[in-house]
């Protein structure tokens, strides 16, 4: 009897292991889309515990709560850099993307005839002010909120969401650690900097065959955490960064850092910072007679960058979380409507905010006005897994981080041209390892 039971158990487990443990993903991948070769420590030993293999559940109460009977408006929160921030233009784009989705929903009748109302909060301020803004949103009885971009503020807000139980749909912060906190009240529809780091490693070392790389990054959390996985991955594939220099937001003269980089004779340079500083750095790189190829982070994909960098931008390669030029009717309609409403082209933050807000509205339409139920449906790995927005598909990993394939952007003739990023599953020298502790 025991033998039969063991046989059937093994049989059952084999079948179960063949199934996809994270529903909706098209193929089995490591957590965070980590290429097999880049899984931490995997060449030497298996880890004692692998986190993020399955979505965490929220076991708290609240699903039975009914909404107020005399509701006059359905409040949606917004948290973003709208005053006193170096990334204010990004925040305005995010706000406008959110507004457009709200306005379109209200034209269709809102929620059962009740209009949606955006409760707008500025996230910039000293000493964790984003947490105070989330408390205000709780006092305002918002059902969920969109935001934000700066990772300091995202983290502070996220921790408050657990206490207050308000879902945060993050549409602008690519900090990988945002979804690595295990808090079941935050999801993200914009692909993270892990994705950017991995495809840049592939492009720079495998495709373009560079080996001596210099990094110039913002001296902020965005620069530090954003470049982290690129740096670690470069080391892991055998090409440690030869020099890393830093700059502050608002800085305009970068010659001291660039002179030091020049002395190391790098094959190529990677920039990780906001559009304005990246453009100025690029110009000064060329002014110093440095003709190395330059790669960069997604924040360089902006009209501001092209305007400041001018001809120096030619040939620059960056990542981009979506393809703004995709031949997609939904995207085209969004761009047309956005331009008509706000008089400017939408950027990556506007597009993802538009998608994130539409996901939230659809969730509310499906489950009604209950914070926990809204959270449940957006995190169930079924209803919104594969959601097709104007930015593309949502493919959540087990932390509700969108790991859909991102795009490469290359400046040609003064314009960004977009192409799919290379697949990270290779059989050549970099991605040769077939199996790791994270394979599932």
């Amino acid at each position: 009897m025991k033998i039969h039971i063991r046989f059937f158990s093994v049989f059952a487990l084999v079948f179960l292991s063949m199934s996809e443990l994270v529903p909706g993903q098209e193929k089995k991948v490591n957590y965070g889309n980590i290429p097999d070769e880049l899984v931490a420590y995997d060449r030497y030993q298996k880890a004692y515990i692998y986190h993020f293999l399955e979505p965490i559940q929220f076991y708290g109460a609240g699903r039975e709560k009914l909404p107020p009977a005399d509701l006059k408006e359905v409040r949606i929160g917004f948290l973003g850099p709208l005053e006193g921030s170096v990334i204010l233009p990004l925040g305005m784009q995010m706000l406008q993307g959110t507004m457009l989705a709200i306005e379109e929903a209200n034209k269709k009748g809102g929620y059962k005839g009740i209009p949606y109302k955006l409760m707008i909060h500025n996230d910039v301020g000293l000493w964790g002010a984003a947490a105070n803004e989330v408390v205000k949103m709780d006092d305002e009885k918002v059902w969920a909120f969109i935001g934000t971009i700066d990772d300091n503020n995202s983290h502070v807000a996220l921790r408050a969401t657990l206490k207050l139980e308000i879902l945060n749909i993050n549409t602008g912060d690519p900090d990988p650690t945002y979804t690595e906190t295990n808090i079941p009240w935050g999801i993200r529809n914009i692909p993270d900097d892990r994705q950017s780091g991995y495809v840049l490693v592939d492009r720079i070392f495998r495709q373009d065959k560079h080996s001596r790389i210099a990094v110039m990054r913002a001296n902020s959390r965005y620069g530090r955490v954003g470049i982290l996985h690129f740096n670690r991955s470069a080391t892991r594939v055998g090409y440690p960064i030869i020099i890393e220099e830093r700059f502050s937001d608002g800085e305009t003269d970068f010659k001291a850092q660039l002179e030091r980089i020049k002395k190391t004779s790098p094959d190529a340079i990677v920039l990780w910072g906001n559009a304005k500083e990246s453009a100025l750095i690029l110009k000064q790189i060329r002014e110093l007679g440095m003709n190395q190829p330059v790669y960069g982070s997604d924040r360089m994909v902006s009209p501001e960058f092209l305007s400041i960098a001018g001809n120096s931008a030619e040939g620059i390669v960056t990542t981009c979380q979506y393809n703004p030029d995709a031949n997609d009717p939904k995207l085209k309609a969004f761009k047309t409507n956005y331009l008509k409403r706000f008089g400017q082209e939408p950027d990556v933050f506007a597009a993802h905010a538009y998608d994130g807000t539409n996901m939230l509205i659809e969730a509310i339409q499906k489950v009604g006005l209950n914070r926990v139920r809204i959270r449940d449906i957006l995190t169930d790995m079924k209803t919104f897994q594969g959601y097709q927005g104007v930015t593309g598909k949502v493919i959540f990993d087990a932390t509700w981080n969108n790991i859909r394939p991102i795009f490469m952007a290359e400046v040609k003739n003064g314009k960004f041209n977009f192409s799919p990023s290379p697949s990270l599953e290779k059989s050549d020298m970099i991605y040769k390892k077939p199996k790791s502790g994270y394979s599932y």
Partner: protein
Amino acid sequence: MLAVVLAGAVLAGLIFLGKPLHSEKVSKNESKSFSGNYQNSSDIDLRNSSGVIKEAKAIPVYGNWHNFTMKDGLPSDKAYTVRIDGDRVLVGTHDGLAVYENEKWHTYTTKDGLAHNGVVSIDVNELTGDVWIGTLGGLTRWSSGKFTTFNQFNSGLPNDLVYCVFCDGKDVWTATGGGAGHYDTQTGLWEIFTEQNAPMHEPWTYGVSAGGGKVYIAAWGGGMIEYDNTTKRFRDYVDPDGFMEIDLQPDDGIVHDITTATSYSDSIIWISTYFGMSRYDGKNWKGYFKTDSGLASNFINFLRAEGRVVFVCCDNGLSSTDGTTWVTYKKDDNSENGKAIITNGNEKKEIPLSPSISHNFIIGVDAKDDVIWVATSKGVSRGEMIR
């Protein structure tokens, strides 16, 4: 899809055959629950139980649970924190401070002078009897019937969302999203500790406790920060592998850098995370996960140590342990009943409880003498030691 259906059918067949799905090692030592005759766990005669229960005598087991919700006078069912203060019990809820005294609840709100109705942390200064209340909108001192508010604008409080407040003699420590705050009640001076002047990665702090001449700060993403009251120096303890997605080796240090609370007792510091729990005796680290201990879940909201036992507020049950034996309390999904699960190594025993704790999402706990109070996502529970 077909594979899943087939596998499910096979597993169903195994269940039909009446065979437990967990390992033989566990089932071999697993005794059945006490018979259904027990309506109250205090009826259980532990002297007649198996070895695992005798082991459990080393740590308290609570029963006779009594649950309180809004129907009983709480201002909100969502309770964040609980503190026993002599003959009364202070409960922080989403909608005010509830005080249980002489078997009655009384609520205090902003109308009475609270900084905010969302009360997330409470501590009592043993020297003065003052009650310090951490809220979603500032820190409140309740002294001689008077409420005084400290916030970012009128004091050195780092941030108005006070996740944790802890009294250590004359000192009051706060953990906020904008840094850790230290208030000297004798001099009236504040100090703020952030990544600028302490070894934190960021200024985000979520828990604080003290003991043995040191202060222990749970720093979000920065592990545990230890502050020596004598030398005024800091030391940080972080996950040695440095990766968010793994714990490379067991017992090599703190289990994860996303820490949520600390508690010091009996020369041991306990640290909770959303990824498991750590114990540090000043020399050796020990990590605990759901998969290798009796921990209800790896997601831990808070913990508090009393003597050599730590009470662990998980998102799916309340656990307590001395590091070896575990007692975990869980409520059944569809009734007010539940069980206490006693675990020691591979041995396991369940004691039915009727009623059980109010809810499995545990946010706060306090235990004194023979009584335990638990703050949950849906109500507050009071238990009595049953041995």
